[in-house]
């Protein structure tokens, strides 16, 4: 599981952990808190492709439905199926068991435009 300090962040509160050509996608604790109890997660399925700037899926809470933005392009290689039965893991452990999906990308450069953990946490304290 990624260490939060190794993740990169968007202003729309997704986190991305890049390791080689694999990008793990999640949402931050701040986002999980704002959304309130997550009731359903639907990420694009394994084998589906994502264009840079596409939505990688949706996260639903008691209150609302939110798109998960993804600045990386690539192919989905894994989805966190454990969230089907326990979507609440996104609330309780968003950087660990609450990760959403993984993609394989040919271009990790979008990472450069994202915030590091310190910048993000200063901007969006929990």
């Amino acid at each position: 599981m990624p260490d939060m300090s190794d993740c990169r962040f968007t202003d729309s509160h997704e986190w991305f952990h890049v390791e080689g050509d694999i990008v793990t996608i999640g949402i931050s604790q701040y986002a999980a808190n704002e959304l309130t109890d997550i009731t359903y997660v639907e990420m694009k399925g394994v084998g589906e492709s994502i264009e840079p700037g596409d939505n990688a899926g949706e996260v639903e809470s008691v209150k609302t439905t939110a798109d998960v933005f993804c600045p990386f392009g690539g192919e989905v290689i894994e989805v966190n199926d454990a969230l089907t039965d326990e979507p609440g893991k996104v609330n309780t452990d968003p950087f660990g068991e609450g990760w959403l999906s993984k993609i394989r990308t040919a271009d990790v450069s979008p990472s450069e435009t994202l915030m590091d953990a310190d910048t993000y946490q200063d901007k969006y304290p929990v």
Partner: protein
Amino acid sequence: MTTTTDTTTLKHTPFHDFHNANGAKLVDYTGWEMPLHYGSIIDEHHQVRKAGGLFDVSHMGRFRFKGKDARAFLDRVCTRQIWGMSDGQIRYSMVCNHEGGVKDDVLVYRIGETEYLMVCNAANRMKLIEHFNEVKDEAGFVFKFEDETEATAMIAIQGPKVMELMSNFSSEVPTLKRYRFTIKNLIIAKVMISRTGYTGEDGVEIILPAKFAAKAIDMMLKNVDMDAEEPTIKPIGLGARDSLRLESGMALYGHEIDEHLDPVSAGLDFAIKYDKSEDPEKSPEEVGRFIGQDALQKFKSEGTPRKLVGLNLEGRRSARQGMKIYSGGGESEVGFVTSGVNSPTLGKCIAMAYVDTGHCETGSKLQIDLGRAKADAEVIALPFYKAP
């Protein structure tokens, strides 16, 4: 995903410190900084269904009408009959516009023959003040109309264990019938306690002076161990208030009813009195017709093109307000969603929706466009959940 929190210019209720002390997530709700939850909406929802919860509803509007024409005025603006109510009685009513749309849904409390209290939605408070002043001046009604919202506070205590708790506090309160209230003189202030609520559970709502609010909460909760594993009462936010009312099939202003949605289509006929002529002192022409009556009578006799229904959804995706509803596999649009939630009590997704009368029979099979996907849905009778 987008999230916003700007809480700089928001009004605070007298329980603001209480919310902060209990770890509330505060949000802007119609200009008031209100608790969305104190940790988990779902946990709070279950807490109310299983034991009890305490809600700050001080943001709701509270008006007093006092004087010789107060009753006649209320019969003019309310769809429900106010004449003939008894002291200590409460009635749920609509306040309609001339077209039969809903300006607000309210509770009217009769304190005495010439004195009434009204509780309205926070979002509609200023609109109603304007409307009431216009009607008052137009018809020359003589009474005093006062907005007591910010001078008072209001809490709701709801859940199956609440009346037992209230019996420790007053022997009279548990004997109150539904939609009745009593006024208790506590040491420092008068409090109004009613057997009403918006969760589908038994319970009370309490109106009290703002200055006394913090002390009152202490008094109410002095026998409650809030840190116990299963406390009788916990503070509950607006998030669970919404999911609780939705399971109970209750309309929420801005969702099931608004200025363009009428109470006949919403299935709220019980709150409309088409013949207010039982007043022996005044002719029906004089006070018997309320604002919006002509339109509502027409809806009633001719039927409305759509009805508010309950929907059970297949799958685990929630429907949201404004989503379109189709029949016959998606060919024809037959309605729209007003509220939807993944029901914590029932463990499935439910929604309320307006559906064309040809498709609103119980058992009708429909489809909801959820954006990325469509969900099958079936019309079911409201409410979704009834307390045992």
